[in-house]
């Protein structure tokens, strides 16, 4: 399969990249790892006239602490997320999630920025970023702004990004040491999108949940932050009755499509099952 023709641009700075996207207009697309865009181009579902490759922009790489946050450059690959000692120590749900994305070859190239910015409801990182209350740094021709992950996703492939804007970094408030976490993903095979998946991050003290946040993947047009379910669990001992109530609240906000992964009612139920399992593992890790 041969994509349509395009002109290739390889800027070396964010400023240059944003300038190119601004001047080339609607027919230009930014390309990060390309493992969503290139397959679309090969199918001619996307035919940009210009590709602005972000791979040469050094400022978009790297993982570092910045005060109470951790900053991850948008062009950091999933492979680098898994290999990062800092992330494995401070935000281990990220490597747990990245390990469940696609396959080794795709993880060497696919980026965390592309995963969150593309707006594909099947991508795994967006729900995790909502769960972690991350903020995206976005740069366009009018400068930089910050957008909360929980306000970023508007519909399938529709996000808060303006034309010509790119996500340059992801800022995540470092979760408390000793927090519990889990990402549970039901998929049919390696490389598949989730039938349903759930992300949980919680803290506990004295046998009670002191904070809890839940994200859900691929059970609606956008990733979901299950605020009500999180509230129900906060203050509880994660007893079976409370978990059941929270799972029902999480299932209630889903609206999956019926597709080859199963009918809508099944996928909603699986979101509940994934959440129950994720809560169980997060509880064990939080040292209840």
């Amino acid at each position, binding site marked *: 399969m041969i994509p349509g*023709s395009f*002109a*290739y641009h390889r800027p070396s700075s964010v400023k240059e990249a944003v300038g190119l996207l601004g001047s080339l207009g609607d027919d230009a697309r930014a390309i990060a790892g*390309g493992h969503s865009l*290139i397959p679309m181009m090969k199918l001619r579902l996307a035919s940009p006239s210009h590709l602005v490759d972000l791979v040469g922009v050094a400022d978009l790489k790297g993982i570092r602490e910045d005060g109470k946050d951790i900053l991850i450059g948008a062009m950091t690959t999933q492979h680098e997320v898994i290999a990062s000692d800092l992330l494995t120590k401070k935000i281990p749900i990220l490597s747990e999630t990245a390990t469940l994305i*696609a*396959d080794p*070859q795709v993880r060497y190239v696919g980026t965390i920025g592309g995963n969150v910015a593309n707006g594909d409801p099947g991508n795994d990182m967006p729900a995790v970023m909502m769960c972690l209350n991350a903020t995206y740094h976005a740069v366009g021709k009018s400068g930089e702004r910050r957008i909360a992950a929980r306000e970023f996703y508007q519909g399938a492939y529709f996000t808060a990004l303006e034309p010509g804007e790119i996500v340059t970094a992801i800022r995540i408030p470092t979760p408390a040491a000793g927090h519990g976490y889990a990402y549970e993903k039901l998929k049919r095979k*390696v*490389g598949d999108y989730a039938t349903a998946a759930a992300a949980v991050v919680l803290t506990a003290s004295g046998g009670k949940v002191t904070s809890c946040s839940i994200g859900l993947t691929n059970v609606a047009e956008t990733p979901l932050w299950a605020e009500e379910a999180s509230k129900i669990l906060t203050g509880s001992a994660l007893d079976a009755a409370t978990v059941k109530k929270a799972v029902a609240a999480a299932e209630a906000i889903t609206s999956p499509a019926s597709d080859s992964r199963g009918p809508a009612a099944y996928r909603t139920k699986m979101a509940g099952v994934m959440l129950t399992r994720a809560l169980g593992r997060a509880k064990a890790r939080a040292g209840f």
Partner: protein
Amino acid sequence: MAKSQVSMTVNDKKVEGLVEPRMLLIHFLREQLHLTGPHIGCDTSHCGACTVDLDGKSVKSCTMFAVQVNGADIRTIEGMAAADGTLHALQEGFREMHGLQCGFCTPGMIVRAYRLLQENKDPTEDEIRFGISGNLCRCTGYQNIVKAIQYAAAKISGVPFQEAAE
């Protein structure tokens, strides 16, 4: 569309070419360099038959453009054996352990396993299966591919290969 000059190192040799930006790396390797070891299987970045080693990463050459990898260092199955024809430990392992039947997936499997063993000299069976999960084989059921990689890992480490009991 204007063509771009690209140069890269492929199997330790400097190569150059003139490509349209839309030319996929797999087409550059096969059609311009006549390296037909990397195969086009699914053409949708699932099967891994087109896997090549690029700057220390295993990548699917059907899902990148040649122009993107200007300056890269690439290894394909053609660059695995020594110059005198001595097979690489992985190639020997696939032969000794019957790690292939039709052979279509084999170039991608071997090149992927090469990077896996660079990163992990003594992988467990689970680590091997996870490490090759981006490469599909429709013949073997993977059993002998895993054995072939275990054979190569042992050979590279200089220890005798012990086949696990069935």
